[in-house]
């Protein structure tokens, strides 16, 4: 935009937001300044805890006061001082001239009210119009966000429509009154990659039509590359860099931005490592799992769901096999069947030449030490009442190792996953997400397994931490000659680590092969669609901090 800059919709000047006493830092935001011009998308990027969501709260005047409050600076919306407005004036602005789109389409809509009612609520609050006129407007909005059959969606409850459609409803609601400023707080984070792209396109399209300014909050540089005109990078409440998107993405100046961008996994997979002569450690043959129809004579019936049908795969020593797919593709069920946390209906899982699925309970317990799991949520998968050393040593002790030796070994493992030895005697809650995931990995390694099944192990982590954990996994795989079955929805992560990948859709393998080949020449239309939906796929991070695995 080189023409004389239009008057900005939003100006934030030297904003400081104070946190309650005893927090890790006195100010959640310290000296943030930014402007959003009409028709411009400004991305506010930062890792968790950077204060990006509080910025939205401050602009909307919806901070959890008095604990968290604006301590200094100015926020001007169309030249008016937001901080000086009364609550009644703010209510008139919210939803009408400034509107918001939230992250979780699942929880951001009231489950007890129909979609139509919830859109109508905004109109009722801000539009002087009769019932019929409002309904017509709501239907038109639903049409504009491309919801199939707007009239039927209007009468549906949120649980009756899909996640992507719910987010469309949120957008319809936010844009219903042509606001001048739209604040989008991680609007696509909870969505599947193909849906995410559609929603991003939709936001762009509508925002262009309306000429509204957008403050787009995200942690994902791929999304930034997809949508941003301007980028503001936050670190721990402080602004480290801001500038046009092209500038920040391709020529980042601040070291922190460089580190963040460097941590974004590259889409170019590593060259294929020939492993065909390595022995097969784990193989699945014709696996099938149907979650049976529930209920019977006296209770309600639920239709049967086929989660996995006819899955066959081989995992060689030292190899990483990625299982990728969107939600509902059955990829998590695969990880559960292979570890026998869920019983398959038919098929065989061969581990070390023995069929895991045919094992008796006793044999299974012995077999378990060959195959271990790393879970997605490092918070929920560690017992909060146990010390780290006991968490790690538990497995070996159960398998008959001398407790003292097991604890000794646990301490060695902590060093292996790059945690300090002092970590051993602390509790899980004293660690950050990334550190907890390292503990989870150490726990899996304690039994010296042949195979590690990792179910979305980095999905809950910030991008820089994610890069470290991925590097650690790659490193351990080399050193211990491990085989990894890696379940993920994130194609960037898969590209980074996996030698071969399986693409799943609705319980079926639609494509399988070496990662490099699948990424370079996807054969199945679904794979092509998935790859084309990766946000920022045309942008290659200019700096790299991790070496290809």
């Amino acid at each position, binding site marked *: 935009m080189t023409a004389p800059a239009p008057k900005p919709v939003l100006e934030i000047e030297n904003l400081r937001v104070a946190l309650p006493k005893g927090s890790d830092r006195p100010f959640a935001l310290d000296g943030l300044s930014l402007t959003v011009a009409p028709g411009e998308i400004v991305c506010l990027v930062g890792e968790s805890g950077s204060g990006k969501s509080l910025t939205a709260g401050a602009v909307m005047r919806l901070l959890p006061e008095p604990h968290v409050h604006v301590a200094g600076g100015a926020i001007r919306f169309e030249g008016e001082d937001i901080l000086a407005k009364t609550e009644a004036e703010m*209510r008139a602005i919210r*939803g009408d001239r400034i509107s*918001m789109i*939230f992250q979780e389409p699942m929880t951001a809509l*009231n489950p007890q009210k129909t979609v139509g009612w919830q859109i109508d609520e*905004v109109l009722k609050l801000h539009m002087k119009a009769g019932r019929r006129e409002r309904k017509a407007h709501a239907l038109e909005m639903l049409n504009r966000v491309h919801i199939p059959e707007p009239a039927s969606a209007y009468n549906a409850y949120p649980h009756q429509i899909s996640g992507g459609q719910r987010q469309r409803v949120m957008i319809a609601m936010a844009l219903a009154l042509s606001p001048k400023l739209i604040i989008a707080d991680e609007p696509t984070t909870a969505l599947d990659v193909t849906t995410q792209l559609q929603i991003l396109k939709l936001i762009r399209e509508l925002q262009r039509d309306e000429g509204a300014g957008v403050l787009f909050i995200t942690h994902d540089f791929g999304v930034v590359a997809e949508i941003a005109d301007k980028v503001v990078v936050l670190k721990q409440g402080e602004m480290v860099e801001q500038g046009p998107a092209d500038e920040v993405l391709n020529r980042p100046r601040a070291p922190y931005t460089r580190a963040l961008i460097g941590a974004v996994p590259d889409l170019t997979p590593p060259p294929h490592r020939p492993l065909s002569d390595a022995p097969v450690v784990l193989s699945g043959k014709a696996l099938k799992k149907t979650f049976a129809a529930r209920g019977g004579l006296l*209770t*309600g019936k639920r239709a049967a769901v086929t989660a996995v049908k006819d899955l066959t795969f081989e995992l060689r020593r030292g190899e990483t096999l990625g299982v990728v797919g969107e939600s509902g593709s059955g990829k998590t069920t695969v990880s559960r069947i292979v570890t026998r946390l869920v019983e398959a209906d038919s098929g065989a899982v061969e581990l070390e030449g023995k069929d895991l699925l045919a094992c008796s309970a006793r044999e299974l317990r012995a077999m378990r030490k060959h195959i271990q799991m790393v879970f997605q949520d490092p918070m929920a998968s560690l017992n909060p009442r146990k010390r780290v050393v006991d968490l790690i040593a538990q497995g070996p002790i159960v398998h008959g190792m001398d407790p003292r030796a097991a604890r000794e070994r646990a301490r060695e493992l902590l060093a292996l996953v790059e945690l300090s030895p002092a970590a051993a005697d602390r509790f899980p809650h004293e660690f950050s997400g990334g550190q907890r995931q390292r503990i989870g990995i150490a726990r899996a390694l304690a039994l010296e397994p042949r195979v590690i099944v990792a179910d979305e192990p980095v999905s809950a982590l910030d991008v820089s931490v994610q890069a470290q954990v991925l590097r650690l996994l790659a490193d351990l795989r080399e050193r211990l000659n491990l085989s990894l079955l890696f379940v993920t929805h994130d194609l960037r992560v898969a590209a980074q680590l996996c030698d071969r990948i399986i693409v799943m859709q609705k319980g079926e393998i639609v494509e399988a092969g070496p990662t490099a080949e699948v990424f370079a020449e996807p054969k199945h239309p679904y794979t092509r669609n998935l790859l084309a939906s990766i946000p920022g796929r045309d942008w290659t991070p200019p700096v790299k901090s991790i070496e290809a695995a």
Partner: protein
Amino acid sequence: MPLTVPPILAYALRRLIQAAPVVVLIMIGTFLLLKLAPGDTVDALVGDMGGADAAFIERLRIEYGLDQPVWVQLWRYMVKLASFDFGWSFVYEQPVSTVLMDRLGNTLLLMATSLSLAFTIGVLLGAIAARRAYSLSDNIISTLGLVFYATPSFFLSLMMMLIFSVKLGWLPVGGIKTIGAFYDGWKHVWDVALHLVMPTAALSLIYLAFYLRLMRAAVLEVAELDYVRTARAKGAGETRLMAHHIMRNALLPVVTLLGLQFSTVLGGSVVVETIFTLPGLGQLAYQSVIQRDLNTLMGIIFLCAIIVVVVNFLTDLLYARLDSRIELK
């Protein structure tokens, strides 16, 4: 044309079929339990008469069928029950069903009023307490709720009697109506209402605390949820938030409790009815235990089981009405 049954009727029918074995199990269980208790109707009758000779007692037992083995007695009872014949009360010298029907109205009236009072006031106070969490009014409401909850019902009842009947003389001490007044029309209604004030208050004050605490917790929880934030971002005011977004969702757990508590209230009414000499099922149950009137006791339990099943069915309907995510199947 296939016969289409409205889903609600199909649901009711299924629930009815599910309830039958439950009720049968309850009846068998209580029958056996009561048989385990020492002493029977004859012992109680003879005790009342001041003693009788062994041959007479033997004859009475044969007459009442009490000489048979327990299994035979159980079988005979269940067969009769299947045709809704509750048998004969040897204490009241009337069919059990007549005795029960006399009392049922009073108990239902007492329970319905006290539960709906406890529910409405509890929900309202809970919501107020939650909106002003940790303020003075919240503390007062919460503390009072706890005090009433912690007070034993007999103590609360006796204290009320002492204050309102004995000291102030505002309310009648007990009974359901003024004996010998023979009021009719509105006068009768007013008379019964006056008699019910204290028992209702005693019962509802105790149960109010449950609803209050649950509602307060539920409102506090729901107020933090994402969709309430969404509504705020739409520009909705506090009243609107409360009425449309918070209350409806916060009510769900409270309604669950309502169904569960109905059975406890039946138990609670035993004490309250006995103290206020209200001729209801609770008082009847108490006397039947003392007099070993097995048939009447079984009849009461049967009736209570039916009431609980029906109320649970109604709460499920209400729940489905309140929560759009639940479908009756």
